């Protein structure tokens, strides 16, 4: 446990050692606020539904950018060789890194608190729905993080990690989208709808916390973190 915490702390601090973190949080807040408030006054409804509809697509760019560096840089600088010869389990390192990026994501989301505050000043929004929206966003984002971390562990090129990470996430997001399920063979539709990353987010966003949705995201996170651990072990298969 202590090792997980030390890895977590080091990784979390690493985000803020370079200016990239500040730039990303700023860009994220400006873009989401701009896109949301553009339509907000036209629709003239005091809720955050428009905001949360944006997130699966904004995260597509934002989240792989958080994770691309995580393993790729360790591989490139060969620090991975030292890290893996210290007395740590691979699992501890993977969890530590995941928690660090999770906290970074959570902080970014927390900083968008100005949006619900603004809405609350202008109208009378449903607090429960906004809370559920944030919970869904955190789960969705964490699933993206797990995918991004796994992809980062497969390459030593950060740009490649970003592009492929975004690509795989996009694929898993689109697969459940009505545009795709409309075209898919009917027997596959329930499967696609279930697997798609966005659908569970939408149902949580409607204000219903269903354990099935939570279990879905937790399993997706678990699955990709497991792949991440396997890819670290792959050095032993050569």
């Amino acid at each position, binding site marked *: 446990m202590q090792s997980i915490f030390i890895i977590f702390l080091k990784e979390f601090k690493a985000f803020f050692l370079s200016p990239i973190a500040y730039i990303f949080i700023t860009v994220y807040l400006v873009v989401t606020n701009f896109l949301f408030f553009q339509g907000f006054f036209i629709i003239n409804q005091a809720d955050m539904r428009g905001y949360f509809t944006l997130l699966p697509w904004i995260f597509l760019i934002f989240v792989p950018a958080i994770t691309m560096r995580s393993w790729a840089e360790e591989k490139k600088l060969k620090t991975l060789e*030292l890290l893996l010869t210290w007395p740590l389990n691979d699992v501890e390192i993977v969890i530590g890194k995941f928690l660090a990026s999770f906290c970074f994501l959570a902080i970014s989301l927390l900083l968008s608190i100005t949006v619900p505050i603004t809405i609350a000043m202008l109208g009378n929004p449903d607090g429960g729905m906004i809370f559920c929206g944030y919970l869904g966003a955190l789960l969705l984002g964490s699933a993206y993080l797990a995918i991004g971390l796994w992809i980062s562990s497969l390459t030593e090129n950060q740009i490649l990690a970003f592009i492929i990470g975004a690509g795989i996430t996009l694929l898993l997001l689109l697969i459940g989208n009505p545009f795709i399920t409309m075209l898919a063979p009917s027997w596959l539709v329930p499967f696609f709808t279930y697997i798609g990353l966005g659908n569970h987010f939408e149902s949580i966003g409607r204000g219903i916390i269903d354990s099935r949705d939570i279990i879905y995201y937790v399993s997706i996170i678990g699955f990709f973190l497991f792949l991440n651990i396997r890819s670290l072990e792959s050095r032993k298969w050569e």
Partner: protein
Amino acid sequence: MSTTNNSIMLDVQNLSKHFGDVKAVTDLTFQIKKGEVFGFLGPNGAGKTTTMRIVTCFIPATNGEIKIDGLDILEHSLEIRKKIGYLPENAPLYNDMQVNEYLAFVGGLRGFKGAALTKAVDAMYQVCGLTKMTKRQIGKLSKGYRQRVGLAQAMIHNPELLILDEPMSGLDPNQIIEIRELVKKIGEEKTVIYCSHILSEVSATCSRILIINNGKLVATGTPDELTAKSSAGNFYQLKVKGEADAVKARFSEISDVKEAQINELSDSWLAAKISTESKSDIGEDLFRCVVNNGWTLAELRREETSLEDVFTQLTRG
């Protein structure tokens, strides 16, 4: 084999490592005693780094058995990694951390907490000469200081086995002397494995040397033993006055002489270079030969095969 003997720090039996068709290490067997400074020597690409990666549990071997302090590295990987301090080639470090942050991070992973952690980090500043660099960002350090941070990282938990892979690469002569002294000091108490392709480094610090080439063990022993083991004989340099053909013929008749080369110098002086088959001392025979033939002798010098010669001889081809 004396695997149960607890004076053995590292015991490698029949180690092989293949990457696809490439055989990086083949059937390597050696033992390192506790308290030895052990030189692991070989040209670039000989399999040194691969062997160290296996010993440090980074990659597994294709074949063979490795025990550290009596523990099998596959079964007790975590425990073994606690005993080892490892400085990989080129000291890979986190460039955006400060020296103090980095050492506190590594110390934490090594199980130090609170005051003990501060103490361990401070001790490393002293030992590795980093006192003035504690707040520096690692990415901005010179190569020599990076190497020191790498050493500090490897030694912070006072490891029983310290593995250094090319620790001197990129250092200037002064830094080399400093690090060499440091390694010797550590070697008084701990076991050190010192990998290098530069022989003079190893022969200056190590009590025993292993030479590896193309993944195979070529020779092992103390520096003196290795010199003695070399198949080459000795060389004698002579400066004599006499007739060239006669000198060559007489010298060649002496037993154990492999070859006599004669070069004419000015004033009818001759420079003779005699090589012998074995290690035997033929100085007296040469002298008597000169006296019996009535030549004048100005110089008679014996030149021993150096470790450099041994290394080149063993690793060439």
